[in-house]
């Protein structure tokens, strides 16, 4: 099973072709198919502090609305894969939301929240995630796995912006190297180099943090 958060592209191509023919139903289906992935993306990537202030659904709504408006232009000139195009729109909206709420978000800086931890609700996210991975984990093993996941997420937070970006794109959104390259406007060797560098840093940090907590 492919892990990408985006739906498989065969049907997308069919729908795009139909949309080009002016099939309104196809447009609806196309956008509907991508609504959940966009929501996932926003949930994954929109700053947690901002997420406490804006409703994710509103952001998704705005993204889908704008996508609908700009779809004709895209169909006339598809510069990149559809999901990457949609991702770009979502990205712009997330940056927007971040700007609008940056001030109030900044106030929270002193109680810095890592990627995972917007209070109690998100605590159970990780818990759930741990158990999701494995139906038959013993409580101890589940706790260990939970701890590991938290450790990884905290470490990702320590990466610089560029490294974090590519790690999240590759391992949370599960984009391929080619897709990452397209989305970032790089050629694919450069994208793979950037990924290599990020994973190297992540490994270093994982290890040094691991050793620090051992001692």
């Amino acid at each position, binding site marked *: *099973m*492919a*892990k*990408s*958060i985006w739906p498989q592209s065969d049907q997308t191509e069919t729908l795009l072709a139909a949309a080009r023919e002016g099939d309104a139903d196809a447009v609806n289906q196309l956008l509907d198919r991508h609504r*959940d*992935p966009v*929501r*996932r993306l926003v*949930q*994954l990537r929109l700053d947690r502090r901002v997420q406490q202030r804006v409703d994710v*659904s509103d952001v998704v709504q705005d993204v889908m609305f704008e996508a609908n408006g700009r779809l004709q232009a895209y169909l006339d000139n598809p510069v990149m894969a559809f999901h990457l195009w949609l991702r770009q729109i979502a990205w712009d909206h997330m940056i927007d939301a971040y700007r609008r709420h940056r001030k109030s978000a900044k106030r929270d800086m002193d109680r810095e929240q890592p990627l995972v931890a917007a209070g109690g*609700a998100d605590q*159970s*996210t990780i818990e*759930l*995630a*741990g*158990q*999701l*991975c*494995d*139906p*038959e*984990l*013993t409580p101890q*093993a589940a706790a260990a796995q939970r701890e*590991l*996941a938290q450790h*990884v997420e905290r470490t*990702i937070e*320590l990466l*610089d912006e*560029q490294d974090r970006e590519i790690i*999240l794109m*590759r*391992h*949370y959104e*599960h*984009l*391929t*190297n*080619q897709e990452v390259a397209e989305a970032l406007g*790089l050629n*694919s060797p*450069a*994208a*793979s*180099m950037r*990924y*290599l*560098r990020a*994973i*190297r*840093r992540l*490994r*270093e*940090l*994982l290890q*040094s943090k691991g050793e620090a907590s051992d001692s």
Partner: protein
Amino acid sequence: MNAAGPPDPRTAASTAVTQSEMSLHDQKLAEVLSEMTDGVARGERVDLEIICRQHPNLASDLRSLWGAVLVTDATGTAQREIPAESGSGQWRGLSLPTTIDDYELLEEIGRGGMGVVFRARQITLDREVAVKMILRGRLASEADLQRFLAEAAATARLEHPHIVPIYDVGDFDGRPYFSMKYIDGETLADRLARGPLPQRTAAKIVSKIARGIGAAHRHGVLHRDIKPSNILLAKGGEPMITDFGLAKQEASQHSLTSSGMVLGTPAYMSPEQAAGRRGLVGPTSDVYSLGCVLYHALAGRAPLIADSPVELMLKVLEQDPPPPRMLRPNLDRDLEMIVVRCLQKPADLRYASADHLADDLEAFLNDERISARSGRFSQVVARLFRETHHATVLENWGLLWMWHSLALLIACLSTWLLQQADVTSRLTYGTVWTVGLGAWAMVFWMLRRRLGPVTFIERQTAHVWAASMAGVGMLFPLEWCMELPVLTLSPVLGVITSMVFLVKAGMFSGAFYGQFAVLIATSIVMALSPEYAHLIFGVVAAGCFFIPGLKYYRQRVRGELR
């Protein structure tokens, strides 16, 4: 595009890789690693070792980075599996009480692999129920969802005092759920965490659960996932089994996920389930799991334990658990016998059904004679001659063995004809047996490799064969050294070949003891009638290969049709 962020002082020294100074090595490494991660994203199983072999100069770098890739990916994937729901109602943030269809969810009472269980009130009937909501991420596709609903509906028809009744199966906002009787109590797993049970209590609980399972089997429903945490002990009441057949997609998926991360602990799983041989999973698989539960209840631990799930899986396939009496010396011998009977690796040596197990447990409780005592010797014999779990490997070899029997026959016939023509040149015979058969062995091995990757056990077999060829080849120089007439040592051929089969009997199937015995006998016959020695050997040896070859070839064909 080279706008690297400010270098982190802690890591800058060792990872000072900017694009301007990137070496060819790093470029190649980046490419390979990206491809590997693409594979992970596509959900393929990426084999680090194979890739390291393809790129030996990258191997150490890949090895050091791969763990970080897998762990990050598992973390990211776990994040993703939290269902993205329409509306703000992600139910991790679900504020209770809340109403779903006819149910008012009151509190969360448990979490399992498939979802979350809530205590709830069914509004129309005003009764207390448990509602289990299934995580959508656990059901990969629409087909899975349909199968789940069908299975839950089948389970809902089961009525038995020791099965937690399912009331209703539904679908709320694309998320399947079902409601079942609310049991106020604890699970057997909770109970066992405080220590093993008294013998008679353990026997009573398992016999009742076995009755429930037996009833389910009569309705064609397998449980597939019996374990202490699925057995509920109502306060002051009866034990009940829950979570029927929900782990339908188990087996192969249990063992290794696509990313190669090991998940799941098959501690209560039967060998046929652990091996992913779905065709063989049946009522006796549940009997095995019941035996594991009984073992755990008596001995205070699961029958097989290991540090990692993979190791555990291998143990489930290959090792017998320590006898329960080793862990609990005062354990009744009859009860131990019952446990051992359940935990037989070959399914047909276990109780034929959960009801038979329940009968025997009740016989034990009533101080009557148990059936597990009978037939011990015949079982030992039966075990000796059965196939091991490696036997399926032979399906790859069936057709090749039939060809091999032909090659052997040709070698033997030509030797015999040469002998009839009074040829005495050692070189001629030696060539037939070393060059001729050696060439065939090469062809054989190439044909086998073309069928797919060669397993460890097959490499072992190949070595045994190579050893036998070396032995056969050495006969000619030895005859020459000892100044014996050529072909004097031919009866040893029979001995050497018989040894090959003895080894295979241990590795694959006790049936090969037959070939061993026949070939030993043949060597004697060869010694007694040297002029027909090769003719006899050729026919017998060819038969020894042809018969199992045909058997496993057919087995493979049948398997492919299925």
